[in-house]
């Protein structure tokens, strides 16, 4: 968060790993050990059983990003590390935000914001709603900022995941 406030460049590192026991532990340990200040990390299976994709986003200077990539490449179970160009990458993150909406006016406002961000209200109770929103991490940030006016009761973000766009002819 510190690096982000200091307006360092944004980076997306995508890497595929063999689905071996302890691989997530080794990656998490590496980040702590080398004191890398990451913004998010996400993990999930790929089309290939036995292979997972992890995505790390961070704000940082060039030498830091290079070290992250080199250290990741050293891990035995890491198959391939790519640095994605944010301008040529589809980056998505999902957030669930539980907000306080005690009255019809608040609910109407919420509905308006949710539409503007192409989110969805996925749960409603007499005084609260859960909203799902998907987009770039920056869009998710902006949406969460807006939700603060209602009072955020709980928040869950997935962390960013990403794929490079196919090259254009």
């Amino acid at each position, binding site marked *: 968060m510190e690096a982000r406030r200091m307006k360092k460049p944004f980076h997306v590192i995508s890497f595929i790993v063999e689905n071996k026991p*302890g691989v997530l*532990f080794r990656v998490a*340990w590496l980040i702590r050990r080398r004191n890398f200040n990451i913004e998010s990390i996400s993990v999930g299976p790929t089309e290939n059983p036995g292979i997972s994709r992890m995505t790390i986003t961070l704000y940082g200077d060039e030498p830091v990003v290079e070290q992250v990539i080199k250290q990741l490449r*050293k891990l035995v179970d890491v*198959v*391939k590390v790519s640095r994605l160009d944010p301008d040529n990458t589809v980056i998505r993150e999902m957030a669930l935000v539980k907000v306080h909406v005690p009255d019809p006016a608040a609910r109407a406002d919420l509905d308006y914001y949710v539409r503007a961000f192409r989110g969805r209200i996925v749960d409603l109770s007499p005084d609260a709603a859960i909203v799902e929103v998907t987009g770039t991490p920056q869009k998710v940030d902006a949406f969460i900022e807006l939700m603060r006016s209602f009072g955020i009761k709980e928040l869950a973000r997935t962390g960013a995941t990403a794929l490079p766009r196919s090259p254009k002819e």
Partner: protein
Amino acid sequence: MRLSGAKALIKSLENEGVKVIFGIPGGAILPVYDALHDSSIRHILVRHEQCAAHAADGYARASGRVGVCMATSGPGATNLVTGIATAYMDSSPIVAITGQVARHMIGRDAFQEADIIGITTPITKYSFQIQDAEDVPRVVKEAFYLAMEGRPAPVLIDFPVDVQREEAEVDLEAEIPPRANKLVKEPHPLQVKRAAEALLNAERPVMLAGGGVIISNASEELRALAELLMIPVTITLMGKGSFPENHPLYIGRVGMHGSAAANKLIMEADVIFAIGTRFSDRSTGRFDTFARDATLIHVDIDAAEIGKNIKPDIPIVADAKQALKAIHDAVKDLSRKDTSTWLQRVKDVKESIEKLDQRPADELSPKNVIREIRRLLPADGIVTTGVGRNQMWAALYLEVYHPRTFITSGGLGTMGFGLPAALGAKVAKPNSIVVDIDGDGSFLMTEGELATSIVEEIPVIVVIMNDGWLGMVKYWQDLFYGGRYCATCLRRGVPDFVKLAEAYGANAARPQSLQEFSRAFKEAMSSDRTTVIDVWINPDEPVLPFAPPGRSLAETITDLREVMRGGG
């Protein structure tokens, strides 16, 4: 073939060519020890698991092969940790095998259960927990491959006791699956060309050889290139042995306690060619002062070392041997810039610094003792060290001529390393004389291994630089803490190392003069029993030269009054 997991492990180790395992048995590794009973593999029973790892490490460094250590679950496994960390920091290939509680008990905080994989993740390249007896041959093969591949490192195999007992259909010839994560070993041709040009055009070139040169067995190539281009060579502590220290192009070792000549000359160089070094702060001094105005060429097999501490101008990710060969080929038919002025300067600096030494040659001082060891010890004799002043004196005063004959804990700086590493080295090279140059504090940490050396008949020579203090720490208290000796006095004579050694059945001597030392050392060399030589030295003996921490190598001092003035 139908085998128990334990038998499969021993057969697989035999297939890897393992001749010796250092270890201590316990409940959760008993099936493996039972299988070991029928094996040709020699087991060496140490007295503390830490020493099993150090001995495996010493074995690996002396031989260039993987060293193997073994312990039971829980405390047996955790006792290995310091030894594994020591090997990891110095890129030494060991395979550590630990017993583990039965699978159904894992995670239940069973008796003698420790999450040894979790504990050792930061200090191993990889670890395996065997879940199925049929996996044993593949796991062993992979472990040995990973330990040696690229930059060597420890690998851990955690073996639950029920899997050791379980019988399975085992294929001892199982192949390891190919890894997608391929290692680059050949240097990039473009970078080789750039490095060659930089070296040919250099006016004041210096080569800096690290431990990577020894690991990749590239000493011949290093020497060939240095002689071809007439480039002075300096080394790091881990690079000791990579280049013969009696060679005319050798200028001494760099670093905090490096030679004044090397520290001076490397700061004057316009091209520094560094091979197989990770630019430890102890070698470079303050990072932002090192090679600031020089063109830096950096060869390392580990890409992550390039630019980690010091950013090179010409990075070469490659095996040291292959890179040196490629650069040799690239420069051999080309003409180089005349460097005779530089070589004269190198010669002058070396000579002026040698003149500084005015102490009597017959005093029983660390320097004279170590020079005497060198004089008496054959060139292929192996020296290990403890950590502290003893280690720095050994590094300063012991000329080393061959790779793998100087074994020290450089990165982690593990006190107590000397004796168990000496035992490992002696097992690897039974025909070489092995000497542990140790300190009293260091030696006391693993002194129980004298028992191993006697019972297992592994004769080594231990020379203790006995000052009755934790000498290096005392030295820093003298220099930087106004002589306030907090917790550094050990009290000399406790224990009496001569009586202690004799209690173990070892030979012992306490020489009162350099002549007596020589006699004792000669006797030790011809004895087939371990000898402890207790040398009482002046507790105020300094370690000089000294580039104080956080300073540039250019600020290396050779006179203590300079430190006092600097204030630390």
